[in-house]
């Protein structure tokens, strides 16, 4: 489950990382959802998301906003990434009033999302926690690499690509922003947060290579 769960991080570096998305139940209310996703996209667009995407088309950095708007289907999953928790109640209220039909799910610090729901007068329905990573964890890279790579839950941001981007920043061949956008481009759904990625990459690049592997 859960392409937006398991985003590794700390309370400090997750405070600007919220994914809001819309999805329909294929066996219940999917028929006719394409138009509702278009309305969802229109609403969330007004709150300055730093990334957006639809699994059926791509994200704003790979496919572009216009292609996303033209490509909604009944089994789309449409995402927007925000860096400011203060906008959550406003987005929630507007989505509630729009009464679209597809489910609305929010990934982020659970306490902050709960506060956003309360401020909007909405009761949470279901929550999901990560209980961590188990098994042969010695196969994983450092926590710093994981914090960047796990922003794409489908694994499209390779650990080696994060290391390559850090090398390129250290070598002056890419700015942290350019490196963050290159990573965001790979995540088809559009849930990589390029602002957070830039901050994390900048901090990692300031360390020695052996410290970030």
């Amino acid at each position, binding site marked *: *489950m*859960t*392409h937006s*769960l*398991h985003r*590794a991080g700390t*309370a400090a570096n997750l405070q600007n*990382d919220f994914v809001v998305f819309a*999805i*329909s*139940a*294929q*066996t*219940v209310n*999917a028929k006719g959802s394409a138009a509702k996703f278009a309305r969802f996209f229109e609403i969330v667009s007004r709150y300055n998301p730093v990334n957006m995407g639809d*699994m059926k088309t791509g994200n704003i950095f790979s496919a572009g906003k216009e292609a996303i708007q033209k490509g909604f289907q009944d*089994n789309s*999953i449409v995402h927007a990434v925000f860096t400011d928790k203060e906008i959550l109640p406003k987005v929630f209220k507007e989505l*509630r009033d729009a*009464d*679209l*039909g597809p*489910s*609305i*799910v*929010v*990934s982020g*610090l659970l306490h902050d*999302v709960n506060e956003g*729901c309360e401020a909007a007068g*909405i009761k*949470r*329905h*279901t*929550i*999901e*926690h*990560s*209980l*961590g*990573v*188990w*098994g*042969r*964890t010695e*196969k*994983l890279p450092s926590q710093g690499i*994981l914090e960047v*790579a*796990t922003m794409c*839950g*489908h*694994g499209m*941001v390779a*650990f*080696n690509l994060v*290391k390559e981007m850090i090398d390129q920043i250290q070598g002056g061949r890419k700015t942290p922003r350019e490196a963050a956008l290159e990573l965001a481009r*790979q995540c*088809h*759904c559009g849930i990589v947060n390029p602002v957070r990625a830039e901050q994390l990459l900048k901090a990692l690049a300031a360390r020695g290579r052996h410290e970030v592997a």
Partner: protein
Amino acid sequence: MWLFISNGKGEIGVKINENCIACGNCLPYCPMGAISLGDERAVVDEDECVECNICRRAGVCPTDSFEPQVEGLRAVRNTFSDPLVPHKNTSVPGRGTEEMKTNEVTGRFRRGHAGVAIELGRPGTGARFRDVEKVAMACAEVGVTFETHNPVTFLMKDLETGKFQDEILNEKVLSAIVEFDVPNEKLAAVLEKIREVAGKIDTVFSLDLACRVEEDNSAPAVEIARAGGFNPTINGKTNIGLGRPLAKEA
């Protein structure tokens, strides 16, 4: 001349055509590290390649040399690795399931129950179905109900035991999600089984716990996990209950 990736059984995966100039641009993009440079061209390790197609879509190949040609069991790899491929039975793109995302509409996880998902191979490591089977069979021993609208469940030949079809056990995928519903009374035992089987597999898994929020805004399953020594993360997913029509509460 084409460089096909074949396992000798007529199963064909991604191929790199003769235009490849061995520039190496694609190497860091492969989540499995399955691409290396040969004498004249890039070479893909067929056993490690999970058919995710990121090499092709990354747009870094100057000669457009990657071509998908996924057939046979390679298609199983593709379904569980390329998020653009919706599963034919669930219609959900991305190897995933709707799980708690649509719970207010489907009623999949009800009060008094927990939803558990074990995503083998995540993060970024990949998994073979023989490990997926080990985990599923361990959980089945406690008595769980595997989610039917899940692409992994479709590959099981016995939903009671969690046994898979033998021919797929060696197939490697980017990740695969064992998902089930369990009553809260059995949750502690299931989580203990999961902790136990974690030491018997050759990959990693990410563990999820979903539950319906109570009227008082509490989440009983999360407390059961804490009591069992698990540490639920501070971040997670919240279904804010705006989907319609609402499922009837039990």
